[in-house]
């Protein structure tokens, strides 16, 4: 039976776990199922967690494994009928960046999932390259090159490579292919 403190630590990670799940699957509905299943699995495998290591990284690994083994196919079906998550969540209006958040999210969905997840893990979830490499089961070199390709692709999709001197006009996401 896991300890009460393990439960509290899980509770503290739910928001981040769900944010990762939404980014990965592109659907709030799927993300919530993924989070629920991950919590169940984490609870019943709590003895496998090594204290002192990152609980966040461990949970992300569990969730990612569930996603790629059970949900990825479903995600494609659901995304089409369900609509993209950006339209289903209320977004706090604190956008300091020049980029329109809606444009950015659209561009993000056009990235291959393995690039999107690396970008999310490193650029937003606060995980290290080493942790991301363990989670994605690849080497650090691969993590770095995926990150770099993801950034270049976003720069291209969001047309950030043009007219960088001028104040940003209304931007539209370029159509992919």
């Amino acid at each position: 039976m896991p300890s009460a403190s393990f439960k509290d630590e899980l509770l503290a990670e739910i928001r981040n776990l769900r944010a990762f799940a939404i980014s990965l699957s592109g659907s709030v509905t799927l993300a919530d199922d993924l989070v629920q299943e991950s919590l169940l699995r984490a609870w019943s495998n709590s003895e496998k967690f090594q204290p002192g290591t990152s609980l966040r990284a461990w949970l992300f690994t569990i969730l990612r494994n569930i996603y790629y083994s059970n949900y990825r196919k479903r995600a494609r079906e659901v995304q089409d009928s369900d609509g993209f998550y950006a339209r289903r969540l209320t977004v706090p209006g604190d956008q300091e960046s020049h980029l329109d958040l809606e444009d950015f999210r659209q561009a993000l969905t056009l990235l291959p999932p393995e690039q999107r997840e690396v970008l999310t893990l490193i650029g937003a979830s606060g995980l290290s390259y080493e942790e991301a490499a363990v989670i994605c089961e690849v080497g650090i070199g691969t993590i770095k090159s995926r990150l770099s390709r993801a950034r270049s692709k976003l720069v291209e999709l969001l047309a950030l490579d043009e007219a960088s001197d001028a104040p940003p006009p209304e931007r539209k996401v370029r159509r992919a292919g």
Partner: protein
Amino acid sequence: MNVTRTNKSEAPAPDAAPDPKAVEAIGRALEAHYSALVQAPLPDKFVELLARLEVGTPVSDPQRRRDALG
């Protein structure tokens, strides 16, 4: 020529590097995107799930429940 294989993971990815300002803008947008997701209202069911697990109530798997509901 010395062709000793160096640790590639130490070197930055070889792709043509985009404008640092553009990368910075993307970094900020990514953080804004993610923090909005982290701050989004959280359904009660997760907290309830952990509470049920803690007291030992059996919990059904969401996928199976979904299938059973058709």
